[in-house]
């Protein structure tokens, strides 16, 4: 499939998009917490993949390379947001978004559902308040369930650095959520 993309096969490329779009979108959404921005970011990621697939040498795994592009695109969008002074909140997102959003079905009680939603919202907000550096390690570790080695390959830093960033990210989340401890 990747070889076909290198040769310029559009069918192979389409197949690649369908295979990886969910993962790319998950990362984008986790980083940006906005459906539209995540969608735009996912499109940008695949367009970049199409334009630069020839330079993929195969030294790293394709997903590592793909996630690296995704992280760069998301960081670019976050920087643009910072310059424009845009902040994203979950409430605004839910009210503006016309796109379907899927809630995992676990069949909790209404109270539990409410509590769960509150917890998730609080954590999401806390993640959004993190710096891009800490946010991306939380996304890759918790949302994507990637290993330390995989994250190290994506971010091009030592595993020790990944662990260190993750520790600081979690400590920051704990601190941000300390006043909402009752939800946990």
């Amino acid at each position: 499939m990747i070889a076909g993309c290198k040769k310029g096969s559009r069918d192979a490329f389409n197949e690649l998009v369908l295979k990886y779009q969910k993962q790319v979108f998950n990362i984008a959404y986790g980083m940006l917490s906005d459906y539209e921005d995540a969608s735009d970011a996912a499109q940008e990621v695949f367009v970049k993949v199409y334009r630069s697939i020839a330079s993929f040498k195969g030294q790293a795994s394709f997903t590592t390379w793909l996630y690296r592009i995704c992280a760069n695109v998301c960081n670019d969008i976050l920087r643009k947001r910072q310059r424009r002074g845009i902040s994203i909140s979950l409430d605004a997102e839910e009210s503006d978004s016309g796109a379907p959003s899927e809630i995992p079905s676990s069949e909790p009680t209404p109270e539990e559902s409410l509590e769960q939603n509150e917890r998730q919202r609080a954590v999401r907000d806390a993640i959004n308040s993190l710096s891009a550096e800490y946010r991306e390690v939380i996304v890759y570790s918790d949302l994507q369930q990637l290993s330390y080695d995989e994250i190290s390959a994506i971010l091009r830093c030592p595993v020790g650095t990944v662990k260190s960033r993750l520790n600081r990210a979690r400590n920051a989340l704990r601190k941000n959520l300390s006043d909402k401890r009752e939800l946990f």
Partner: protein
Amino acid sequence: MNCSEFNKLLDNYESLSAEELSLLDVHAAECDVCRSELNFFKSIVLTSSSLPVPEPPTDLLDKVNSRIDSMPASISRIDRVINSFRCNTSRYVTAAACLAVGIIVGLNSKTIGDMLNNSDNGGVISTNVSVSDSQDEDNTELPAEDPAPVSETEEAKTVIPTEPIRSVVKQQPKKTVSPASETRKPAGVFSGTVTAGSEYRPVIKPEIVSEQPKAPEIQETPKVTEPTAAAVNGRSGSRYVIARDNYHIPDTQPTEAVKVTAEPSTAAAETITERYQIATGSYELPDDEKQKLLKNKLIINEDDVEAVTECMRDAGIRGTTNGYVGSTESIANLLAMLSARNIYYNYAECVTGVDEVVFILLVN
């Protein structure tokens, strides 16, 4: 473990070993506060790991293809060319580096080959004094790079001295000048010339001019009865003159004049020309008188005069009307000092076995 240690471990949760994690749990089981903190921590991790993520747009693929199709074809092609170039850059760089190395090696090989072919010394490359023309009568005896100028009775040595030249000179057999042959030159006499501008480090060799000496002996010099003409008409020409002009004599001029006659025993060199000419020209002297007139010579570069003078002073060398005088030990110390300071010199020793050595200082 106390609560403080517990909190420190919790702050580095991702870096904990299995043993440390178990310690954390053990303390949490005993401490309510720490247990609450650990549960809070784990709950955050659990929640972030289970955050709902909406499905990607169903038209994501279509939008991607639309964007690709809307890109100008040239840009797309350029992108591919650029990416292809980036992909092969390392190969291009490697190939260019190999080509450059090959060219450099080729050039160097050619240069070395040329040097070997053009050299007349069997391939020995020397930066020392060039081999002087065989027709020159005042030629520096060079190391065995070119043994041609060396007398048949002498063994040519390839010497590029890095140690006091005295040791080199000592290795060479001492020859006494026999008054019998007019063509003989005093042993150990510096009859060399130095090519101007060359890295001077000539080698002094005592030589006996054979009946049919080879160049660079002063074959054509007139007989001793006409020393002046010999000096003027000598084939060494300017080089001969250079050595003469730079001849350093002590502060006091010699008072004795040397008459170059058949019996010059009672005469000392009156002029520099005559003195030098006596040293290099053909003359006849009795052995004992020759010993008086023949002096060792220390040849240095003009730039080193000050340094050499300082070394001579440190070594206890003193100046006299006849030249610089010192004991054999002080001479040896002087030469050692010059070597230690990397000062080029050439010491022609023609008088040995005496307690006090007299030498003259020649400057290049």
